[in-house]
């Protein structure tokens, strides 16, 4: 082994000795970290597997036509179903989406296409970020104070507004990020043809970002479909079918919670069944999106 000809000390030899002394230890540490990483990955997958397994295993037996369409029989009887909850989820989530999606997309368009560096634009962006992190129970409080107290009763409307507060910031962020990816040259081409900004956005930019935005909306809807806390204080959760926008209604997450707290096996079984229905509904929504977006590839990060 050669050493530097112009060095006084034999650093090479010293280094060589140090390296050899520590080599084994370093290799062991590296191996341990790798093993730890693999163990952690497995540890993260196990709960997912278990959850899916339990939901399917316990929920499948509860599902029947009666389960899907009938209201719950007397408590503990094991008869009836969660029909009102399914209906309620569809209505409340649907209404929330009708409010949340357009507002979210429009606000996202504002931030991406129209906003200039100013107090208004910056605060919109900042507070939108703040809103994404709000605890859902607080959002329930908002729904309660603003709507339930104003109207005087627990209502579909309160629930929908609350869920939309959760949905909008997600859609805004996804829309803005997706639009940012659309190359500027598209807009330039429109400008050079003398087309107005509104038309450029609607006819040129938006269509090319369609898939990404659609994904974002579906992710947001999946998120609010599973939310429980805001519903506790806004829709109350009854065992009746929909009676009107200003009346209370049931929803799957809420129903699951109530069923889980009851001491009867049949109620628990209904709970698992409802969980299965909820997951299937969310899954159906996401798969529905695949069909819509089959043309182009897209990437969205929340």
């Amino acid at each position, binding site marked *: 082994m050669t050493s530097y000809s112009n060095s006084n000390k034999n650093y090479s030899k010293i280094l060589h000795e140090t*390296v050899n002394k520590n080599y084994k230890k370093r*290799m062991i*540490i*590296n191996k341990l*970290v*790798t093993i*730890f*990483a*693999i163990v*952690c*990955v497995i540890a*993260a997958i196990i*709960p997912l597997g278990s*959850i899916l397994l*339990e*939901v399917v295993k316990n929920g499948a037996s509860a599902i029947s036509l009666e389960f899907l369409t009938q209201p719950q029989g007397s408590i503990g009887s094991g008869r009836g179903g969660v029909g009102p909850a399914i209906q309620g989820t569809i209505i409340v989530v649907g209404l929330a989406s009708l409010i949340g999606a357009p*507002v979210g997309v*429009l*606000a996202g*368009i*504002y*931030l991406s*296409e*129209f906003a200039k560096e100013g107090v208004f634009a910056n605060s919109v962006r900042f*507070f939108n970020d*703040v*809103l994404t*992190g*709000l*605890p859902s*129970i*607080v*959002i*329930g*409080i908002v729904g*309660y*104070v*603003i709507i339930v107290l104003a109207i005087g009763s627990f209502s579909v409307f309160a629930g929908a507004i609350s869920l939309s*507060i959760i949905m*909008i910031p997600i859609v805004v962020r996804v829309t803005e990020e997706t639009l940012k990816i659309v190359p500027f040259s598209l807009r330039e081409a429109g400008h050079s043809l003398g087309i*107005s900004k*509104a*038309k450029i*956005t609607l006819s040129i930019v938006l269509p090319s970002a369609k898939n990404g935005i659609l994904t974002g909306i579906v*992710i947001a809807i999946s998120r609010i479909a*599973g*939310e*429980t*806390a805001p519903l*506790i*204080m806004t829709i109350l959760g009854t065992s009746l079918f929909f009676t009107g926008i200003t009346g209370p209604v049931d929803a799957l*997450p809420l129903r*699951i*919670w109530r069923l*889980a707290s009851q001491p009867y096996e049949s109620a*628990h079984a209904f*709970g*698992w069944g409802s969980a299965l229905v*909820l997951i299937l509904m*969310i899954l159906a929504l996401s798969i529905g999106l695949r069909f819509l977006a089959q043309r182009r590839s897209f990437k969205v990060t929340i």
Partner: protein
Amino acid sequence: MRKKRGDRLFYGLVIGAAAYTLLMVGLVAFSVTRGSVDIFSAEGISFVFQSNWNAVEGREAFGAFPYIIGTLLSSAIAMAIGVPISLAIAIFISEIAPPRIGIPLSFITELLAAVPSIIYGLWALFVFRFWVRDLIEKPLYDAFHGSIPFFAKTPFGLDIFTAGIVLAIMIIPIISSICREVMRVVPDSQREAAYSLGATRWETVRMAVFPYIKSGLVGAAMLGLGRAVGETILVTMIIGNVIGPGAIPTSFFSQGQTLASLVANEFNEASSDLHLSALIALGAILLVLTMGINIVARLLVKKKIKISSGAKSQ
């Protein structure tokens, strides 16, 4: 002419939608303040430090202290377990695994994030708590209950400890996916510099990747913390639901209560306006806590991604 009006209409719509965002924030601030005004004028700031929780009419007294402790403790457990595991997963997917394993794996972690918390709660209540009780809590109790006070109470599986573990499972996808995103920003030239000095893979991560994005990793952890702090329905199903001074946990296996879980539990049965106001005030405290965490977190993550893309272009 018609075109111009259409344009103005569109512009009005987008501005209106953006303004609606600010409006929502205002509504949040308003409702939380308005709702908690009653209790704060009745008890003042001592509400935050008291432990009583008495809804009996005429003898009402409410205090948030035990639930603040419960929130902090359950989140601390969640972080202690969740952060190292999230980092390990991020390292595995980003630095160790080849793409054909890494991509499906990150998909699976995204799936974990998509499970609604009510279903986590259901699973935790009927399945997981028994695993925790039998595989972790009983052995720990048997080994330590005499010596370490933190393991004192007889474990049933519905306690702060289990809540902390399930919260950890819930925040792992969030933290690890942001960690991965930040790790991606580190240029390969940095890793190559470390490897060319004869570093092992772990040493490369430790020397070239982590320091580059340190604040981003902290930000990711804090975002996870924000989620853990605000989680409601899962916690209320497995934490044991106690109130009053007894709700201050003395051991890992104590039953507990968090700010969010108590609100969820009692809201529909609030017996008086003052009671309701106390619950809303709990929400206010939670709000301040969460906002603080999330603002700091986002600043840290954004700064890291911005700096790094700037440096990359040099």
